[in-house]
């Protein structure tokens, strides 16, 4: 496996300057390049290159931070040539945006798959949260990209992050077709919940606990379920029992 060299010494993973920059200490498996005459179509080769570039960017960011990661690092980690990189993306920024979008997409597939088949909003929320935490703790560099790097990086990246939170907020509100009476929270309130969730996870990643994110499971369950009528009344009942 790989080991992140990011020390987080200054709290964000931002390097202190070029001098402090280190090569990634990666013993990562080299990406499996497609051999010439592999029989794959041109489209398949291109899709494979793109996948490797995106993964390479994620790793490069985890090692160097957004400001210090260079395209040289990305092409090295992706095992593609520099011209190939530029055939896919015009800049590091464009590649970042694509990697971020791709990461959010994969995260939401993981969440959706986990939640599918559960009935009731509480059960869907729980299953989705578990799925998301599992996904993130299995892929620390991607978690770093989605939850830490996007906060520290330049503004376009921050806007990507906020789009992700909005998407999460929409998911938290659940199907809007349901009865609006009681417990229906506004989108803004759902965004606040999403922001609380994300900043908790960012804090844990910054503390170097990327692989143990799912320890926050119970806490986050309680947090996200507070607006749900069933959970709230149950908790209120428990509180009353505790007081009485």
């Amino acid at each position, binding site marked *: 496996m790989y080991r992140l060299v990011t020390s987080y010494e200054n*709290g964000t993973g931002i390097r202190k300057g070029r001098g402090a920059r280190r090569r990634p200490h990666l013993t990562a498996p080299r990406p499996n390049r497609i051999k010439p005459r592999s029989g794959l179509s041109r489209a398949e080769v291109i899709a494979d290159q793109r996948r490797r570039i995106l993964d390479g960017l994620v790793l490069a960011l985890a090692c160097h931070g957004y400001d210090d990661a260079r395209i040289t690092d990305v092409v090295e980690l992706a095992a593609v040539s520099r011209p190939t990189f530029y055939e896919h993306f015009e800049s590091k920024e464009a590649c970042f945006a694509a990697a971020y979008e791709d990461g959010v997409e994969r995260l939401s597939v993981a969440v959706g798959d986990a939640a599918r088949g559960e009935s009731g909003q509480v059960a869907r929320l729980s299953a989705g949260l578990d799925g998301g935490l599992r996904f993130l703790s299995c892929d620390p560099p991607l978690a770093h990209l989605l939850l830490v790097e996007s906060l520290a990086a330049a503004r376009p990246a921050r806007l990507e992050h906020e789009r992700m*939170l909005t998407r999460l907020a929409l998911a938290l509100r659940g199907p809007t077709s349901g009865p609006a009476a009681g417990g229906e929270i506004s989108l803004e309130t759902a965004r606040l919940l999403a922001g609380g969730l994300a900043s908790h996870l960012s804090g844990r990643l910054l503390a170097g606990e990327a692989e143990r994110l799912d320890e926050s499971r119970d806490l986050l369950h*309680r947090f996200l379920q507070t607006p749900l009528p069933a959970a709230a009344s149950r908790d209120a009942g428990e509180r009353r029992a505790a007081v009485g």
Partner: protein
Amino acid sequence: MPVSGVPRSASDEPERFQPDALGGLPAELALARLPAGRHGLPREFVAHNQRLRLVAAMLRVLPAHGYPTLTIGHITSEAGVSRAAFYQQFAGKEECFLTTYDLASEWFCEQVERAVVGEEDWRDRIRLGAAEALRLLGANPLVAHLMAVEAPQAGRVARERQQGMLDRFAAALRADHPGRPELQDDLADLLLGGVVALIARYVDSDRAERLPEATRALVEYLLIPYIGGEETSALLAGLPEVG
């Protein structure tokens, strides 16, 4: 006039956070550059004036450059202070940033705390505190930017200072008030993380002035963990629009 020489007296509530008007400077000199050459002003006075002007300049130049790429030159030319004078006041960019952050967060916390002083009902305290916080930040977009966008990316110490400020609010959310259900301890931090994200979103989309529009949602969000969604919406339905 926003010029205020005695900003912390009870009668005079500064609507705007203006570090160069803080610190007991005479109002007529507080915002002005000092005259060049021999002016006979005491040395400590000049130093204090320069320090606060540098802090005010830091606040103003941050949005254009962002902390990671900000240089001392950006700050000194905005402040109209020499580089040598900068280094007499601060060891470097980080110290200047931290001083700015401390002044702003102290001002912010005091204003919010003052807004709820004497309020008995815990729900009203949350409502008034949230409304005041968003009103202050809406009136001071530079402070909103400093606290929600720059502090998280200005290094470990800045993050610790920010955490210190959040802890102050978290303690208020946990503190006992008659009739209030207990908040599970660890939820206070999660709640405040969401608030910082809200402010950052408004700042990043250039809508910091409109933060007060989020007051109702913020109050809803802060009340729900105590009394649940249904009781919160019932409570909010009975209130006039705030903000």
